């Protein structure tokens, strides 16, 4: 039995010895090197590009500009608004303008300076407000109105009735600042081609299948002549889910010159590629009865999308879709709008679009609980949806361990006993969330499977697993090996996983939307079970036993009640091959048809939802307002933990990343220039900053997940940020309603609160029993 065991990842050995080969580690004979010239302006028309001086520079092999690849692409088929290199116009500082290909990187870099570009500067729009206000300055000519890239309006139920029924209606405005992935590996690729014109592209990506489609399209070549291979990937978090300029340039150069080329981005360029968390302004109106029951929720989101669409069409829908899957909400209205601006394009980052409104909702619920005198934890349990329900916006929820998650973090953190007895400056806060286990639809809608797996067994008992998935560190290769080894009764290391190679592996849509364990896991299990049936049948003939009396484990197939009667796995494989021919089987997974019948019903549907609860404990310095997050308790319903260590690693990594977004990280700009494009200035948490993280599994055994599994890679991030925000309030008594929560914002919030209270006629603050108790217990010792 391998399921549920904490075995080392099958690729750990390569990763701890430096043997794992990432894109930038690839070295091929005659390999050239490319560098990219990027726009110095946030918005400008390109009047003229002259590459002649660069071309003449010794060692330069080619220069590529927008004129060489004049085909629009985009990861979402209906919003393709991007060229590999700017054609006529640049839209952010960092927009690719040209690529130099040379004998070495230094030569390419030097020649970038010799490309003469004449720009006519255009006014730049750098915020949601500016993009809304200046309809005359259009960043894309194709938009119907101003800079509105997408507008969504959905309504479920009679909102007027809902707010009329409410005893308390709160409307609050929040702002969630943009953040970026900052994977440790900068983007890189290598392309090669031969005289047959076929191209091989090794690229650091989460989505080889989508890269395959888009690169073939832009290079106007048959997909059958392009092979995309995923090397080891040094982290993604959503930032490597679409093709970038270097992918196209590398393939074009390789095809033109019949020799390989490598592009490796600098850290600053990785910040400019971005496609990270959208800054979102959120207006949230919630009505509740006196007992806290929700009567209606109206959510409005304004997304600062940056210069291009990226996944933004999905993102704007996602800001609305998943608010409904945690609490009983009888009426719901969602208005979302994504705007273009002159900054790097935003896209998906861990928690895609659901992170920002979840932060707002969990902060607002904390205020509602306080106003109604309810315990925030008990209140969340009171509101929690039941398993096997359909939400007001048509999402089918099956397994749901939300209440148990709340109980786990409440019990382990000592919420009940400790919360009211912390000294001044210390606080505890809680939040919960939910996330999809794979999107119910591919980004291009079709009826084909979302994941395919081939398993083949050789005569020596070796097993190969082929799947188009991309292991970005989360352990998807190990998951595939575990599932197949479990079914066939062999050792984990008997399995070789070949993943992410569009020539050899069946399509898997990629490592995004937390879909791989559920979808590829189900596909792998289906393929392995077909082979298992043949192997048991063959062993049954050899052992003179019925297949249902046999079991496969420890590289043997044996009679269950008489284990001394067995054949080796390899013997059974040989017998089965003699009967059936070459032993291989395919499995695939297609999600069930889900969702409502309205436009936009395709986003938010998922075969299963994970649930998470978090309690955060913080200390805020009463003089400097410096915030220290002491500890995070995180309980996550992942269905079933196929490998508990790897699931814990996903919970801890998500908690860490959410923590960074809560109090440090921001992807912000000054006059269009990135303010912090380095790992020093962009404050990602160090080992010293990161709090203690207590990760807990709640297992609900989802009936459609492989062995009951759901996702763990993204969901646990979502409750961290509001839990910290609520804890900061508990500690200091003022609410900061934007991220990141920083000392200067706390100072302003306290000052504003004092001003409000001092105003003539201001209502006397209602003494809150919790905070009163907190003050009384100032002398109480900490636990």
């Amino acid at each position, binding site marked *: 039995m391998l399921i549920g065991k904490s075995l080392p990842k099958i690729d750990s050995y390569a990763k*701890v010895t430096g043997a794992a080969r990432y894109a930038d580690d690839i070295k091929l004979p005659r390999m050239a090197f490319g560098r990219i010239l990027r726009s110095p302006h946030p918005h400008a028309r390109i009047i003229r590009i002259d590459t002649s001086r660069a071309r003449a520079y010794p060692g330069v092999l080619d220069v590529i500009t927008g004129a060489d690849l004049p085909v629009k692409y985009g990861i979402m088929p209906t919003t393709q608004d991007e060229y590999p290199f700017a054609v006529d116009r640049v839209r952010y500082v960092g927009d690719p303008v040209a690529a130099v290909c040379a004998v070495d990187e230094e030569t390419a870099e030097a020649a970038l300076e010799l490309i003469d570009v004449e720009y006519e500067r255009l006014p730049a729009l750098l915020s949601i407000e500016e993009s809304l206000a200046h309809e005359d300055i259009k960043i894309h000519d194709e938009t119907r109105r101003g800079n509105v890239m997408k507008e969504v309006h959905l309504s479920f139920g009679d909102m007027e009735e809902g707010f009329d029924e409410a005893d308390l209606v709160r409307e609050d405005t929040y702002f969630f600042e943009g953040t970026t992935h900052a994977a440790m590996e900068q983007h890189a690729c290598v392309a090669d081609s031969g005289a047959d014109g076929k191209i091989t592209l090794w690229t650091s990506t989460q989505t080889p299948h989508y890269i395959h489609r888009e690169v073939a399209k832009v290079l106007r070549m048959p997909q059958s002549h392009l092979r995309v291979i995923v090397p080891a990937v*040094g982290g993604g978090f959503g930032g490597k889910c679409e093709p970038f300029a270097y992918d196209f340039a590398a393939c074009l150069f390789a095809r033109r010159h019949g020799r390989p080329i490598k592009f490796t981005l600098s850290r600053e360029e990785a910040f400019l590629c971005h496609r990270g968390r959208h800054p979102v302004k959120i207006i949230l109106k919630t009505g509740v009865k006196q007992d806290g029951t929700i009567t209606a929720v109206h959510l409005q989101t304004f997304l600062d999308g940056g210069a291009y669409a990226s996944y933004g069409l999905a993102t704007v829908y996602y800001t609305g879709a998943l608010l409904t899957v945690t609490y009983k909400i009888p009426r719901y209205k969602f208005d979302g709008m994504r705007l273009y601006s002159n900054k790097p394009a935003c896209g998906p980052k861990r928690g895609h679009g659901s992170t920002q409104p979840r932060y707002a909702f969990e902060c607002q619920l904390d205020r509602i609980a306080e106003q109604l005198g309810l315990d925030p934890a008990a209140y969340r349990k009171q509101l929690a949806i039941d398993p096997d329900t359909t939400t007001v916006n048509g999402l089918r929820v099956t397994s749901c361990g939300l209440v148990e998650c709340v109980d786990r973090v409440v019990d382990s953190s000592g919420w009940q006993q400790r919360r009211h007895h912390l000294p001044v400056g210390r606080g505890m806060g809680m939040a919960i969330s939910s996330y999809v286990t794979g999107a119910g639809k591919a980004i291009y809608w079709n009826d084909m499977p979302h994941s395919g797996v081939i398993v083949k067994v050789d005569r020596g008992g070796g097993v190969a697993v082929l799947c188009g998935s991309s292991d970005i560190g989360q352990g998807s290769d190990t998951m595939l090996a575990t599932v197949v080894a479990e079914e066939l009764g062999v050792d984990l290391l008997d399995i070789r996983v070949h993943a992410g190679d569009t020539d050899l592996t069946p399509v898997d849509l990629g490592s995004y939307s937390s879909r791989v364990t559920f979808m590829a896991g189900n596909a792998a299990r289906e393929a392995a079970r077909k082979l298992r049936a043949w192997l048991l049948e063959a062993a049954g003939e050899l052992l003179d036993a019925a297949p249902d009396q046999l079991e496969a484990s420890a590289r043997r197939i044996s009679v269950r009640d008489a284990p001394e009667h067995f054949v080796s796995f390899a013997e059974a494989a040989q017998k089965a091959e003699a009967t059936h021919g070459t032993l291989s089987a395919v499995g695939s997974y297609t999600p069930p048809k889900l969702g409502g019948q309205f436009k936009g019903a395709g986003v938010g549907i998922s075969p299963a939802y994970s649930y998470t609860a978090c309690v955060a404990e913080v200390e805020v310095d009463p003089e400097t307002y410096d915030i220290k997050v002491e500890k995070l308790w995180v309980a996550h319903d992942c269905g079933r933990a196929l490998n508990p*260590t790897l699931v814990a690693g996903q919970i*801890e990594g998500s908690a860490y990343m959410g923590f960074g977004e809560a109090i440090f990280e921001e992807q912000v700009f000054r006059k269009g220039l990135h303010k912090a494009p380095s790992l020093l200035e962009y404050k990602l948490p160090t080992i010293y900053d990161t709090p203690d993280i207590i990760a807990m599994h709640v297992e609900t055994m989802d009936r459609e997940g492989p062995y009951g599994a759901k996702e763990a890679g993204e969901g646990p991030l979502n409750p961290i940020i509001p839990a910290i925000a609520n804890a900061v309030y508990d500690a200091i008594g003022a609410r900061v309603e934007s991220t990141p929560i920083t000392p200067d914002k706390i100072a302003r919030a306290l000052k504003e609160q004092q001003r409000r209270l001092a105003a003539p006629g201001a209502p006397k603050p209602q003494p809150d029993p919790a905070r009163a108790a907190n003050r009384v217990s100032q002398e109480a010792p900490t636990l």
Partner: protein
Amino acid sequence: MDKQLMTFTVNGETVQVAASPTKTLLEVLREELDLTGTKHGCELGHCGACTVLVGGVPILSCLALAIEMQGEAITTIEGMAEGNTLHPLQQAFAECGAAQCGYCTPGFLMSGKWLLDHNLTPSEDEIKAALAGNLCRCTGYTKIIEAVELAATRMRASADATAAG
């Protein structure tokens, strides 16, 4: 700039490289010696991915000029295991799930090796101090700290056994 001949000892082997004196140790290791286990995350000294040991001490190879490292004994991740036998810290990283994407891992292992070379009973604070110059974006550091503690425990037991034997 014209290339110059440089001589180092890398992972116990003496090597000669002709490289520009402007090349960093990181570049020479990766590009001239094909020791691509050492990674680059920023090339500005911010992330620690390029950490190697020079004379047993961790340094950032992206900030060191190769020509200034002549005559030094350099250890990279490729020199950490003995043949195919992993260093206890490498084994612990694999078992604890301390390497997710693995890109920062060689740097952490180098810093961690230095710590364990000098201290087999490190406190959590000492572990953090030793690893504070290395950034990881996947793990939240939790499993990395666990792995160093596990390796220290095993190395202590092994040292005790050797002493007793």
